[in-house]
C-alpha cells in the first residue's frame, strides 16, 4: 500500500503545472462555494436566531386553539398541574419564559397607534434575549413594576421618552375592557424594525391585571438545556401534556413560512453551487483523462511486470483523490480567514436590498456563518465528486488491454 501511495503522490507532481492548475481550480471553486454557503447560512442563521430570540423561542406551549386564532381568549391557564408537569422534565428544560401578548392602542397627548403589548417576566426574558443589552434609555422593568418598556422605534414615532406616560386601551380576556396609564421606565432597541416599531413590554403581573387574565399566558416559551435536542424534548412534551388543552410547537413549525422562503431562496444557491461543482468536476475529469491517456504505455509496462490491476486502479484512484483533496484543503484553508473576517465584520447592505431586508423585519446586514458544517459540507461534496471521477480510471485499469496500451 505504501508504494501505491508513494507512486500516486509522486505521479501527481510529474506535470507540476497541470496539477497546480487543477488544484487551483478546485481551490477557487471550494473557496467560492464555502463563502457563498457561509453567507447563505449566516443570513438564515441570523434570521432564525433573531426570530427565535425575540419572537418564538425554541419551543412554545400554547392553548390548543391559539395558533389558528391568536387571541387572548385562546390563552392558556398556567396552573399548578402544568407547572408540575414541566418541573418533571428537570434539567432537560433550561428555563421557561412566560408571555401574555395582545394588541392595544397606545395614546399620547397627540397620537394614537396600534401596538403589541407583551407581558413578560423580565428576569426570564433577560436570559432569552438580553433585553438589558438593548436598553438605550432608562432602566429595565422588574416583576413587581407597573411601568413599561417601549421599543425605540415606537418611542420615536410617538415622540416619547423615559418618564413620560402612555395610555393603553384594548380588549382584555373574554371581552373585558383593558385600559390604563403607564409610565415609561426604559426604551429598548429591538433591532428588527417590525418589532422595534410596535412593541411595549410590561411585567407579566401587570399585563395579566391589564388584560384581566389572571394566571393566563398566550405562550409559555420552553428553552431546552441543549438546543440540539429540541425535537426530542418536543416529542416528550407532546407525550405527557394534555393535548386536548395544550399544543407544543417547535420553532421550525412556528417559523414554517420563513423556512419555506429560505428553502426557496436556498434552491437558487444550490443551483449556483451545482454549476460551480460541475465546472470543478469537468476540470478534474479532464486532468485525469489526460493523465490516463498519456500514460497508457506505463500502465501496460506495470501490468507486464506483474502489478495487479487492482493495485494499478488504486494508484490512479489515489491520484484523483490527492489532486482534489489538495485543492479542497487549500480552498478550506484559504476560506477560513475570509469567512472569519466576514463573520466578525458582516457586510452592511444599502439601497433596495437594505430596504427589502428591513421590510422582512431583519437587520440590513449580510452575516456569515462560521460553522464547521459549512466547511465539512463542501469537503464532502468534493470527496463525492473525486470518488465518482476516481472510478473512471479504476474502470479503465480493469479494462486496459496491455497490447493496445503498449503501442
Amino acid at each position, binding site marked *: 500500500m505504501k*508504494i501505491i501511495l508513494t*507512486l500516486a503522490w*509522486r*505521479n501527481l*507532481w*510529474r506535470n507540476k503545472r497541470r496539477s497546480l492548475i487543477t488544484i487551483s481550480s478546485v481551490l477557487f471553486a471550494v473557496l467560492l462555494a464555502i463563502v457563498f454557503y457561509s453567507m447563505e447560512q449566516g443570513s438564515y442563521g441570523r434570521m432564525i436566531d433573531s426570530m427565535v430570540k425575540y419572537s418564538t423561542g425554541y419551543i412554545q406551549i400554547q392553548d390548543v386553539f391559539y395558533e389558528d386564532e391568536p387571541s387572548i381568549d385562546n390563552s392558556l391557564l398556567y396552573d399548578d398541574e402544568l407547572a408540575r408537569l414541566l418541573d418533571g422534565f428537570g434539567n432537560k428544560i433550561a428555563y421557561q419564559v412566560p408571555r401574555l401578548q395582545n394588541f392595544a392602542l397606545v395614546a399620547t397627548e397627540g397620537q394614537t397607534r396600534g401596538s403589541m403589548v407583551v407581558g413578560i417576566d423580565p428576569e426570564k426574558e433577560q436570559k432569552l434575549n438580553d433585553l438589558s443589552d438593548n436598553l438605550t434609555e432608562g432602566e429595565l422593568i422588574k416583576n413587581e413594576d407597573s411601568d413599561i418598556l417601549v421599543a425605540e422605534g415606537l418611542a420615536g414615532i410617538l415622540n416619547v421618552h423615559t418618564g413620560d406616560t402612555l395610555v393603553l386601551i384594548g380588549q382584555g380576556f373574554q371581552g373585558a375592557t383593558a385600559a390604563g396609564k403607564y409610565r415609561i421606565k426604559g426604551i429598548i432597541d429591538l433591532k428588527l424594525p417590525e418589532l422595534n416599531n410596535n412593541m411595549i413590554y410590561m411585567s407579566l403581573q401587570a399585563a395579566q391585571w391589564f388584560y384581566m387574565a389572571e394566571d393566563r399566558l398566550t405562550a409559555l416559551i420552553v428553552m431546552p438545556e441543549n438546543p440540539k435536542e429540541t425535537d426530542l424534548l418536543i416529542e416528550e412534551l407532546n407525550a405527557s401534556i394534555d393535548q386536548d388543552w395544550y399544543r407544543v410547537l417547535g420553532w421550525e413549525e412556528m417559523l414554517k413560512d420563513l423556512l419555506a422562503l429560505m428553502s426557496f431562496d436556498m434552491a437558487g444557491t444550490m443551483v449556483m453551487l451545482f454549476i460551480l461543482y460541475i465546472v470543478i468536476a469537468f476540470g478534474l475529469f479532464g486532468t485525469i483523462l489526460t493523465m490516463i491517456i498519456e500514460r497508457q*504505455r*506505463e500502465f501496460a*509496462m*506495470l*501490468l*507486464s*511486470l*506483474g*502489478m*495487479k*490491476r487492482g*493495485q494499478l486502479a488504486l494508484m490512479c484512484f489515489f491520484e484523483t483523490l490527492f489532486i482534489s483533496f489538495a485543492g479542497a484543503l487549500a480552498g478550506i484553508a484559504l476560506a477560513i480567514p475570509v469567512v472569519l473576517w466576514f463573520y466578525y465584520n458582516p457586510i452592511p447592505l444599502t439601497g433596495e436590498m437594505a430596504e427589502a431586508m428591513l421590510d422582512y423585519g431583519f437587520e440590513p446586514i449580510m452575516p456569515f456563518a462560521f460553522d464547521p458544517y459549512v466547511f465539512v459540507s463542501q469537503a464532502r461534496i468534493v470527496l463525492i465528486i473525486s470518488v465518482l471521477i476516481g472510478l473512471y480510471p479504476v474502470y479503465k485499469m480493469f479494462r486496459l488491454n*496491455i*497490447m493496445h496500451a*503498449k503501442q
Partner: protein
Amino acid sequence: MKIIRTEKLSKIYNHQSLPVKALNQVNLEFETGEFTAIVGPSGSGKTTFLNMIGGLDKPTEGQIFIGDTEITSLSDSKLIDFRLHNIGFVFQSYNLLPVLTAKENVSFIMLLQKTNPKEMDARAVELLKQVGLEDKMDVRPSKLSGGQQQRVAVARALASKPRFILADEPTANLDTQSAFNLLDIMLRLNKEENITLIFSTHDQRVIDRARRVITLVDGAVDSDEQFER
C-alpha cells in the same frame, strides 16, 4: 532443462476482417541458461512471439508451456501473478518509472512480490552493483543516460529472480558503447548466473554474441542455429 515450449503457436490479427498471420504454427523449445536472439525482418513476428511467451498476449491457436504451466489457459489475474514470479522484461524504451529512483525501480518489483524489506534493499543494491550503477542508486531515470536506464531495467528484470528474461530490442535506442556495455553485463549474468535470456533484435552486435539464433520469416521459423561462443 526445458523452460519454455510452444506448440503450434499461431497468432492472427484482424481475425474477422483482413487476417494477418503474425505467427504461424511455431514450435520452439528453450533450455535454461540459453542466450537466444530471435531475429528477422520487420513484421516477421519477433515481438509477437515474445509477447506470447511473456504472457502479454494470447495466441489464436496453440499452447505455451513455461515449465509445467500452460499459460494460455490462465486467467488475467493469474497470468499477472505468473509473470511477476517467473518472467523478467527489458523493453526497448527502458520503461522505468520516472518518479522512482534507480534503486526504487529495482525494488519495486520485489515490493510487488512482498519481499522482506531488508532482503529487498540488499538485493537492489547488489543488482545495481552488478550492472555498474552503484553510484546512481538514488538518481531518478531522467538524470540517467539511455544506457544507464537500460542497465537499471536489466537490474529490475533480475530483481524478481525470474526463470528467464525477455528483452525486446534492448539495444535499439543505445549508442555503440552503451550497447556493448549492456551486452557485456547480460552475457556475464548469463554465463556466471545461468540466467536465460531471449532477445528479439535486429542488432548485429547482439546476434554476434548469441549462442542460439532463431530467424523468423512471415511468422514461421526459418532457421534455428546454435553457436559455440
